[in-house]
């Protein structure tokens, strides 16, 4: 598990700002969401979490148990935590953690992760993203 520091966030911010400078103009474009998506795209499995949250602990255990090495952003320890929270609210309707991205694509909160694991869609997704080798 890798815990990203502020550097990665800053880098994503710069990239997004540059992109904004270049061209954006789409009505629905939200810098926060864009940044989150960029962050998510950087690793095969990205988990947005809170360090004291037990459900987040459960989801981390799930991926580790499968042999996956997710990238975790602890919102309470990250300087841009508030922004990420806002972006997640926009994406999911609530800022409840954990939120999981696989291969840059949003899987969802815990219940969606569980459901996708049970119905057999999570493992192929993980393989596709290069997070699992079997």
């Amino acid at each position: 598990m890798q815990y990203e520091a502020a550097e990665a966030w800053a880098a994503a911010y710069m990239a997004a700002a540059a992109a904004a400078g270049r061209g954006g103009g789409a009505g629905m474009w939200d810098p926060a969401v864009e940044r989150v998506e960029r962050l998510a795209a950087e690793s095969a499995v990205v988990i947005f979490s809170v360090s004291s949250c037990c459900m987040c602990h459960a989801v981390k255990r799930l991926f580790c148990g499968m042999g996956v090495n997710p990238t975790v952003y602890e919102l309470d320890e990250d300087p841009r935590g508030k922004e990420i929270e806002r972006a997640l609210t926009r994406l999911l309707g609530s800022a409840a953690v954990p939120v999981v991205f696989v291969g840059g694509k949003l899987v969802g909160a815990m219940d969606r992760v569980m459901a996708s694991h049970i119905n057999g869609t999570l493992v192929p997704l993980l393989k596709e993203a290069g997070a699992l080798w079997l």
Partner: protein
Amino acid sequence: MDRMSDHRVGETGLSDSGPSNQPLTYGLHGFSPAGTNFFDQEGAAYFEELEEALMQGVVGIRSDGDTKTYLTTRPPTLEIFPSWPMRFHHNTVGNSQSAESSDSGSAQNTISQLESESPVSRKDDYSELFTEQQQQQQQQQMIPSDGSKTEIGTAGNHQSRDQDKRRLTTEKDGRNLDAKTLRRLAQNREAARKSRLRKKAYVQQLESSRMKLAQLEQDLQRARSQGLLIPGASTNGGISSGAEIFDMEYAQWLDENYKHMAELQGGLQAHLPDGNLRVIVDDCLKHYDEIFRLKTIAAKSDVFHLITGMWTTPAERCFLWMGGFRPSDLLKILMPHLDPLTEQQLVGLCNLQQSSQQAEEALSQGLEQLQQSLADTVASGSLSEDPKVGNYMGQMAMALGKIGNLEGFVRQADNLRQQTLHQLRRILTIRQAARCFLAIGEYNSRLRALSSLWSSRPRENSIATENSFAPATSLQILQQPVDAHFSVF
């Protein structure tokens, strides 16, 4: 005087028909000094004063002026217990609800009451009754406008009043009343006092029962309005808690489930075409969705009820995992019953088994962390100090917050269970799925039967000797051969 009693029940009147009535009756008629404080020296003095007051035309009892003339002509003594039923209960009598006070006190009150013009709060049955009789006869007597009757009554009253006076005078003069009379007076006083106390206790009992009844009615009304009439009364004051509501819903769900099982059974045996069977199977699955939905609601109001398995039977509780069945256990049980399976199905089922195991493990670890965190919060600070020292309430608040997270775990566990059932449905053919759901239903129903048998098993200490006849349960039957075997040695 039973009529009086009937009318006066619930007020401060004579609600018991015990001996207390009698002394009053006798006493106020004046022919025997039986039992009341009226006829000790204060009582005698009272009558004399009353007579004087009345002869002077003073309105002694009622404050309203209508009865003034009436009172001057008709002293009340003999009219205290008229033969007509009491129909007028005025609020002047209804004020105090219980009789209390010592004998002498009540006598004093009576005197002061009759001398003053306004009704004071009563302290004694007899004074109340006296007054009420006064009012009643006033009402009654005012109806006949025929003056002659009044005159006759008056005359009669004068006569007996004189008699009373004579008798009372004798008593008052003969202060050295013989011992027998004294003892009788004392006994009557005692009896009167006891009956007052009894009455007081009874009235208090009535009051509390009344409140209890009101509360019960309220609860019943509430339950009825929620459409949740539970035949067996609930334990905690009749208020339907989230747990009770869920238990009731679960019981209904179980009944429905039996119907679904019967349909599945019937459908399989009748070899229904797949189309028809599919409908039955999907109905069954929808029914499972329903219980998960109900559990979600219940988890919000009482997560402990779910997570401790108080809604299930003992044998089911033994296998409880996070408020329900453990999906991987269920799959292990079902596998042998789903043969024959295709290669693809077998792979699918193995994957399902593995993923549910992984998910269960993850949730269990998350819950473990929650428990640890909760324990840390509860134990924080000094456990051996006075709880008021330190941040007791703050700790409690934090612990309560953590308990809130339990709901999330039960929710995720139910989600896991629901997803597992749906995935089973996807992997299997219709016939297999039908058999599968039937097997699940049968397995759970056997667990419930086991719980039932276990609960009603004969206890060890109720078996007197080895040879005693005990109701045969499967356990007993199993035991006998074992005992026989060992007895050989």
